[in-house]
């Protein structure tokens, strides 16, 4: 985000904020509407997460001024995102480890 703001620049920003606000409202309504369709768990999950991610991107990109932000902030966030994914993978593999063990126990009757 540039540190020198002219009046017109700020007014242009404000217009963009209002467009983003409108889009966020529409997406919120869509999320709830989709939930009332009672889709199966996987399509429901994917639709909900995709919409949430778009909303998050709009908030971070425009309200938090991440678009055009300095590289250092981007690096910090990329590093955080990487660790976040690693954490999710650890949890998921811990779960699969459990499931795998239960299956082995059933097949080989090991306690």
């Amino acid at each position, binding site marked *: 985000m540039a*540190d020198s*703001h002219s*009046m017109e620049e*700020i*007014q242009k*920003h*404000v217009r963009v*904020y*209002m467009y*983003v*606000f409108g889009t*966020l*409202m529409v997406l*919120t309504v869509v*999320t*709830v509407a989709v*939930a009332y369709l009672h889709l199966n*768990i996987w399509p*429901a*999950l994917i639709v*909900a*997460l995709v*919409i*949430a991610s778009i*909303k*998050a991107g709009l*908030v*971070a990109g425009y*309200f*938090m*001024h991440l678009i055009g932000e*300095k*590289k*250092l*902030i981007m690096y*910090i*966030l990329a*590093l*955080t*995102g990487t*660790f*976040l994914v690693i*954490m*999710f993978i*650890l*949890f*998921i593999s*811990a*779960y699969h480890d*459990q499931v795998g063990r239960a299956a082995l126990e059933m097949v080989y009757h090991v306690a």
Partner: protein
Amino acid sequence: MQIPYTVEARPDTGVNNAKLGVWLFLASEIMLFGGLFSAYIFLRVGSPEWPGDILGHTYTSASEILNVPLAFVNTIVLIASSVTIVLSWAALAMGNFKKYRIYMGLTVLAGFGFLIIKAIEYSDKFSHGYLPAENNFLGIYFVMTGLHALHVIGGMIVNGYFLGPGAKMWKSDPKRFMSRIEVAGLYWHFVDLVWIFLFPTIYLI
């Protein structure tokens, strides 16, 4: 002593210290909430029914227990407050302190609105005996929404300070005050971001 680089960018980082500090804090917050989301996924995939048994009834959908319309209203309240805080910053950038006061006031007000609705939801759960100890779903629901509500309260204290006594700085050091409002906004948007993920994952799916 003057704290260095509160407004102007540090030559080596390219940003001022306030912004860098808040972004680092938000990075740690991402991991905090990420850990809780991981716990939520872990509990959920590991249970045969979700939300499952609560006080002798088996529930198969969170919307049977939680109030989706109220949470929907709360989503809108929080997003609107994100808009008002960014507008309060824009008002300062245009040198309009009066408008800043109005938008920051609306932001704090929206925070109260969110908490009141949350309190209505909580007391409804409590009155039915739906306590965190009853069931894993209720446990993670109260932990995640409770921690989020604490973040809302924290943000309201900061925003309230900048609305009231902290606003004096606009006269003595307007650039630094603007920078403060910008980073307070970053935090407030993050609180909004967390809710954007909490609402569909806990209430809708």
